[in-house]
């Protein structure tokens, strides 16, 4: 096999890790609260700016900056729920979509206000690793590993803890969980926090590899939605798998032609697949 193709496949795998993390977050929130945070990718953008500001701006150690970013976006997630979602929980779904759409405008503009539109970089130059004839960015490898760890941690949290079980339960039968002593509102807050934390983690991992600018959310936001819908909205495992499928399509497509075309291919394929299996290709 052509060495560059192999590299593309590997890179696709690594990219898929972070996308999968974001898909998990979005699906978690949708599965539990039944809302799609249109501004989810922009929460990631906020996290990236936090990392940038603390590490490159204030000189904090990278690990600390990342920890603060994760916590910060978790808090942001809670705020999104309390200030924007909770007041309109009973409204038509389109209103909820639009409210988070308004948040998208707000976050992008606010970031422009604070940081301007230039691309900012962490200034990290992590080494390139040689595996035989293949060159792999260690930043990308690290991001992939951390993303997997995050996903596994989420898995155990949901399967083994009381709150995790409650979160899974509420996604299946919202009204009856009260009878088990579960406070619906509290679970929503916890879920929003976790969704935010996952976005924060993704932010740290992306900051290692990419520049940050206010509109970076637009580059992968629609991609994440597409991944989640492909895997079945709310289906965490489906979204996880779909993330890797899509990232492979983009990576391999980018190998055969240019990047944007591979995105076009991915989105077009998505639309086609939607018509083959409207509820998601991995619906069981």
């Amino acid at each position, binding site marked *: 096999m052509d060495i560059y193709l192999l590299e593309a496949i590997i890179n696709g795998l690594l990219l898929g890790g972070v996308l999968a993390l974001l898909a998990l977050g979005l699906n978690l929130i949708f599965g539990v609260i039944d809302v799609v945070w249109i501004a989810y990718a922009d929460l990631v953008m906020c996290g990236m700016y936090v990392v940038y500001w603390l590490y490159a701006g204030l000189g904090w150690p990278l690990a600390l900056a990342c920890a603060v970013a994760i916590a910060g976006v978790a808090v942001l997630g809670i705020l999104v729920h309390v200030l924007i979602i909770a007041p309109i929980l009973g409204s038509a779904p389109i209103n909820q979509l639009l409210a988070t759409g308004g948040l998208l405008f707000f976050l992008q503009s606010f970031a422009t206000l604070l940081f301007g539109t230039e691309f900012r970089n962490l200034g990290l130059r992590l080494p390139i690793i040689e595996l035989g004839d293949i060159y792999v960015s260690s930043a990308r490898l690290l991001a992939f590993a951390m993303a997997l760890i995050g996903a596994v941690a989420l898995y155990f949290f949901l399967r083994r803890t*009381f709150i995790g*079980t*409650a979160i*899974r*339960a509420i996604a*299946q*039968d919202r*009204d*009856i*969980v*009260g*009878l*088990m*002593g*579960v*406070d*619906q509102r509290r679970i929503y807050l916890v879920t929003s926090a976790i969704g935010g934390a996952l976005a924060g983690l993704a932010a740290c991992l992306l900051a290692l590899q990419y520049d940050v600018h206010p509109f970076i959310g637009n580059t992968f936001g629609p991609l994440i939605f597409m991944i989640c819908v492909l895997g079945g909205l709310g289906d965490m495992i489906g979204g996880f798998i779909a993330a890797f499928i899509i990232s492979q399509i983009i990576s391999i497509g980018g190998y055969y032609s240019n990047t944007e075309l591979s995105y076009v291919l991915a989105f077009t394929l998505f639309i086609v697949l939607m018509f083959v299996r409207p509820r998601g290709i991995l619906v069981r």
Partner: protein
Amino acid sequence: MIGPNGAGKTTLMRVISGLIPLRGGALMLEGRSVGGLAAHRMVEQGIAHVPENRRLFPRLTVEDNLRIGAFIPQARRRYAQQLDQIYNLFPRLKERREQLAGTLSGGEQQMCAIGRALMSRPKLLLMDEPSAGLAPLVVAQVFDLVRRIRAEGLTVLIVEQNVQQVLEVVDRAYLLEVGTIKLTGTSAELKGNDLIRKAYMGL
């Protein structure tokens, strides 16, 4: 609690367990007023509700369903012991502990639902039509279960359509019609009551 469909039996249960807000009158538990508390607070007060149609979480395992029954802090602390007790009470559930609740048979689901409610270590257990949709043999098992729970010292409030069988296991009964209590008394008294015999026991 017995009575015709639409009398308000399920509604009354849901008010007691907090699913429906109390709009008038008072709800007293052991001398304390608990009216107006949300459902999840009622569980802390010691009231557990096995809902109509079981309402298990279908894609959670049996053990997950039981675990979530022990969500409140006082039950969480005794989770391991409580789980053991429930498995002793329902050996079949223990066999199927990793099975998805949605795939259980009707009778097993009812056991699981009752077990889930018991995990919160309640003082008062509300059971809404536990025999609904179950085969006669299983119904007998359910009522036998009620006797055993009662023997443990729990107070049980059952809403039932199967008047004949339920009057065999309860101490008191209430006849609810159109939202008001038409008749109340010991089960013996009601068993002998003409109206009950004709209208609800087909005798």
